[in-house]
């Protein structure tokens, strides 16, 4: 079963050694948000923000050659932000994607106390078997995370 909004979604898929997700979206903005929510959902982190939490906004500019590499770079930046920056990125807005280059606003909130044991469960998003496919205007991909 896919989780999330109608224009993008993610679901866990089986993998023997690590963790994997399948994502779908009606556009590239949705694809990146599906990947982000899939990353957070995989380690049981919430994609919400609370009134008492200070929300930060980061302007991101990821310069890769193809969308698969952009996706991996984006997710690994998010993993780094959680592990080192102690911020949980939860929403991507104002997305502009062109030929591997992603420009967007990334919103984040502080890591919650109960989430500290989850941060770091995923070492990295991998390129393994990653291919973004477009069928009837729907984008889809499977992403394997190293755990």
């Amino acid at each position, binding site marked *: 079963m896919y989780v999330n909004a109608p224009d993008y979604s993610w679901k*866990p898929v*089986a*993998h*023997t*050694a*690590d*963790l994997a997700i399948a994502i779908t979206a009606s556009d590239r903005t949705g694809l990146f948000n599906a990947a982000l929510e899939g990353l957070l959902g995989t380690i*049981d982190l919430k994609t919400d923000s609370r009134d008492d939490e200070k929300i930060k906004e980061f302007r991101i500019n990821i310069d890769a*050659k193809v969308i*698969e*590499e952009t996706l991996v*770079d984006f997710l*690994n930046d998010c993993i*780094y932000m959680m*592990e*080192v920056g102690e911020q949980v990125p939860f929403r991507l807005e104002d997305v502009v994607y062109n030929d591997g280059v992603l420009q967007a606003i990334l919103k984040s909130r502080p890591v919650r106390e109960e989430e*500290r*044991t*989850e*941060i*770091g*469960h995923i*070492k*990295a998003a*991998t*390129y*393994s*078997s*990653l291919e973004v496919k477009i069928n009837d205007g729907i984008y889809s991909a499977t992403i*394997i995370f*190293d*755990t």
Partner: protein
Amino acid sequence: MTKWELGIPHLTKEDENLYRLGREYLPGMRVPGLLYVSEKLMKQASKDNALSQVANVATLPGIVNASLAMPDIHWGYGFVIGGVAAFDPRRKGIVSPGGVGYDINCGVRLLSTHLDADENKKYIEPLVDTIFNTVPVGVGKGGRIPFKGKKMERLLRDGAEAIVDEGLSWPEDLTYLEEGGAMDGADPSQVTQRAMERGKMQCGSLGAGNHFLELQRVDEIFDQEAANAYGLSRGMLTVMIHTGSRGLGHQTCDDQLKVMRDAARKYEISLPDRQLACAPLDSREGRDYVSAMACAANFAWANRSILVHLVRNSFEKVLGQSAEALGLHIVYDVAHNIAKWEVHEVDGKRTRLLVHRKGATRAFPAGHKDLPDRYMNVGQPVLIPGDMGSASWVLRAQPKAMEETFGSACHGAGRAMGRREAKRKIDISDLIKQMDRRGIIVRAGSKKGLVEEAPEAYKDVDAVVDVMHETGISTRVARMKPLAVIKG
């Protein structure tokens, strides 16, 4: 030669514990795949994408002889886990971060003691509690000693020796670490600030996932000569540590993969999987990766040395004697995610190759120049951690490993069940009861993580070891049963 009965195309059974994946399996394979597995393990391995990953590696430039898989083979990312591949620079061979993995120099260290486990049973629980309260365990748990600036550079260049100089490790420890605890050619300038930032508070921490620290009892000796050389005897209390290069290694791999994906395009290397991104060994990108990887490997040896320091302190505190008097000596330390320059015989000629081991252990036999004097006549101890409910093994590397597997053996039991499947199928309270029935004390940083590591999630380590023994690649020396397990 018989076609394997499950009918996988181009997979043939060569011997009782050896299968060949023919070059016809995947267009572009330069060499066949050779899998050291029993029929039972072959059936498990063929359930997912592991065979395709063996085939993918066989397409890489400069690969020598075969793409090898050990009996703990399972589906990973890029290279198969349990994979071994050697590349020849004279045949345009490559280096691939995907052949090492994110946890660079994930490895195992075994400590012996002078203690009989049964006679000291009353100390096991206080020991495990003291260690659990001393060793930073679990994701997000950093080490107690910050490594920054020059101190970090020294650590990356000199590995475990830097910890000796800090006064936290014994000088003789270095003799019993693969590579002496530091790879040559480590250049800290190849490690990004981002990687150093991610690792600066993590040296001296266990981490999570499949990493563990166990108190064990030597349950059975199978080879007395080797056991004597390794300082192991029946009933002995031992300590096994399994961890790697933590966030510094993960980030180094990620950083270098970005370089490698561009390098693969630059050098027009066709890749069946982007995770196999690579560069020629004689290219700047290839050399830089090997230097950066060596730094992360050195970080991992230093990490395990600090953990040994914390274990020795815990033993001293609980037993009221010095670690020296308690005989807390290192039996050996092996790296099982690494790429190393080694000399092997290819077509009758001694050839310098870069051997990738991704979930595989170096296994150098008696007489090899890289062994410590004490092991020169018996061969290298090969440390094989099992799951937390069954057993771990010490094997003895045999000459056949040099003849057939580039001096390599398996690295563990290998997963049989995915992490999500384990969480779905295994109940935490049942698992704790099961461990209690077996008399194994468990301390864990996360209950969720513990379920993922349940014994049922792993293959039978004895079956994996049987293949190594029966093929003569590495033979049984000692089996250790867990008494207490600390998991991240």
